[in-house]
């Protein structure tokens, strides 16, 4: 057996082992008969259907072996769901106060008050870290539609999925496979959906070679204006040991009047 061959077999073995280790199929119950995968996804979407805009205040906490203490970033956000535009203004730390992000697909603009410059983040930077966190710029501007851009498969039902917080919950486990032409960078996404409230509890992102790259968990699900919305997001990149980013919404409101002028480059570079 040549070295190359041995290497190949080792690689195959690794893929099989890793696959077996991460495949959720192991102790899942067979899918319920009354809902298809697509219907589950549709129910999740329904939870947010009709929302025209949202405003938030949130704190992002970055944990990394690089940092002696977790780093916190506080920001406010405005989203125009109809126009698929959003705006973020950094509130803290003081050094970055006033930094703004404006998303008008397919562009993402970043304004930096200290140097009075606006940068358009180019496509090549989309997979780079957003503000040093484990979220990427792409997470901010992602345009894909959960319903239209994927083929959905039902992997099973987890009778007691232990999520980020709270008691274990019954969860539908779905597989999202992006369509050929979909604007999606992942090869596969596995999603755990709360079977009762139809909110996602966990998402696992795989690359095209089937390697699990990151895991996002959602928790602190609260009722906001009649909708169940997770208020705590945790992103863990699996290729970087000891890293985690947590995003906690202090406030989240829907359909409060948002002036259209918020989503302009003029507003982006406005001095506070």
């Amino acid at each position, binding site marked *: 057996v040549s070295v190359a061959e041995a290497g190949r077999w080792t690689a195959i073995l690794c893929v099989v082992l890793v696959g077996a280790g991460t495949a959720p199929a192991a102790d899942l119950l067979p899918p319920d008969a009354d809902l298809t995968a697509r219907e589950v996804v549709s129910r999740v979407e329904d939870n947010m259907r009709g929302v025209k805009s949202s405003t938030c205040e949130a704190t992002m906490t970055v944990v990394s072996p*690089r940092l002696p203490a977790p780093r916190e970033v506080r920001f406010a956000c405005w989203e125009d769901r109809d126009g698929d535009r959003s705006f973020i203004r950094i509130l803290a730390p003081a050094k970055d106060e006033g*930094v703004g992000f404006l998303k008008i697909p397919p562009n993402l603009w970043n304004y930096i008050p200290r140097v009075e410059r606006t940068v358009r983040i*180019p496509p090549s930077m989309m997979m780079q870290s957003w503000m040093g966190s484990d979220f990427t710029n792409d997470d901010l501007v992602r345009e894909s539609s959960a319903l239209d851009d994927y083929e959905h498969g039902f992997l099973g039902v987890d009778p007691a999925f232990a999520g980020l917080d709270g008691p274990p919950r019954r969860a539908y486990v779905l597989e999202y496979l992006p369509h050929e032409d979909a604007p999606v960078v992942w090869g596969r996404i596995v999603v755990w959906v709360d079977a009762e409230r139809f909110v996602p509890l966990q998402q696992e992102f795989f690359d095209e070679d089937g390697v699990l790259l990151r895991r996002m968990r959602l928790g602190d699900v609260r009722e906001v204006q009649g909708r169940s919305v997770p208020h705590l997001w945790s992103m863990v990149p699996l290729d970087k040991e000891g890293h985690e980013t947590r995003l906690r919404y202090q406030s989240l409101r829907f359909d409060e009047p948002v002036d259209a002028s918020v989503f302009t480059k003029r507003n982006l570079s406005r001095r506070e």
Partner: protein
Amino acid sequence: MGLELRLAWRNVWRNPRRTGLTIAATVFAVFLVVFFVAMGAGLHEKMIEDSVRVHSGHLTVTGAGYLEHKTLEYGVSFDPPLLAALEGDPAVAGIAPRLTGFGLLSKTAKAQGVMVMGVDPEREGSVSTLPERVIEGRFLANGTARGIVLGSRLAANLGATLGDELLLYSVAYSLEMAYELFTVVGIMRLPEPTLDRRFAVIRLADAQEFFVYGDLVTEVALLTSSAEAAAPLAERLRGELPERPESPISVHTWNEVLPELEQLILLDDAQMYITLAILVIVVAFGILNTILMAVLERTRELGVLLALGFRPAAIFRLIYLESLMLAGVGLCIGLALAIPAVFWFEAHPILLESESMTAMVEMFGMEPVMTWKFKITNPIGSAATIFGVATLAALYPAWKASRARPVDALRAV
């Protein structure tokens, strides 16, 4: 033996034209082999020198693990004990601390992802040719903060000219947003277009501030006398450098830092040696053919020798000596022509001026110059190989001649 030698020498010159042609073929082979091996050596040395003088140095001191991951996790403190240890070794000819990071460089609407290297303006020139590559403006200087020197294609893509303020944008080691305005002080031309398009240098101190990196660097590039001297120096430094259990240091030679360059050289060598092997085999057949013809032509004469009491072993020696003489004369003339030629070309490298040639050579990241390099192993190795092959080729005719039976041989025409 003396008689055989004299006989062989005379026989060699009995048919001067045939002998001359065979010698010419040998001369040709020797010349080509020595010349091309020297050209390969020159080319490869140039490739290595050009590459190490842009990228890595002959040796690179990094944090253990940096080479695999190329992230800021593996910083090395460039402190007085490390500097003293490096300066203490007489083989170290240049020391350049660097901080290599990645970011976005933007001029108003245009932005480009870049590799940005923080260098010590005073030390950098002792290892790399970066300061000499500036074609417009000047290189960095310790006195001026926040200057930036751009690759020429990068500058063109951004539409940046001297004096422009560019925004460098990245994520610091502390995971903060890193952004700073830098003034274009110079534009440099790098031979490798892919690098020229996305490479910029700033002062090490500015880079350390920008990436919030303290007094750390990602690598210390070292220059030594030649590529060959790198491995023994690396071995020595591994023992000499200060021990740092909390952040171990590792020393890499150029071929570990640029494995693709070494691969390219090995591949190129393999191709060259296969071509030369074919050439040598053709020449061997030429010698074989000449001697065999000579033997067949002289069957009668050999029969007479045998009838006079020459032993078959003596006939074998006679014919064998003739072949060796042919090869030997060819070798001597070939070497006498090739060695001065190599020396001459080594002193007079050829500039490749044509545009297509320049473009092709630039793909490999070297300057469009053809150079030769004389190494004593080249003529010795080439001569030994050709002589060895010629010796083998002579076995058959010599053996055939010694097998002749006097009666048959005398009857032959």
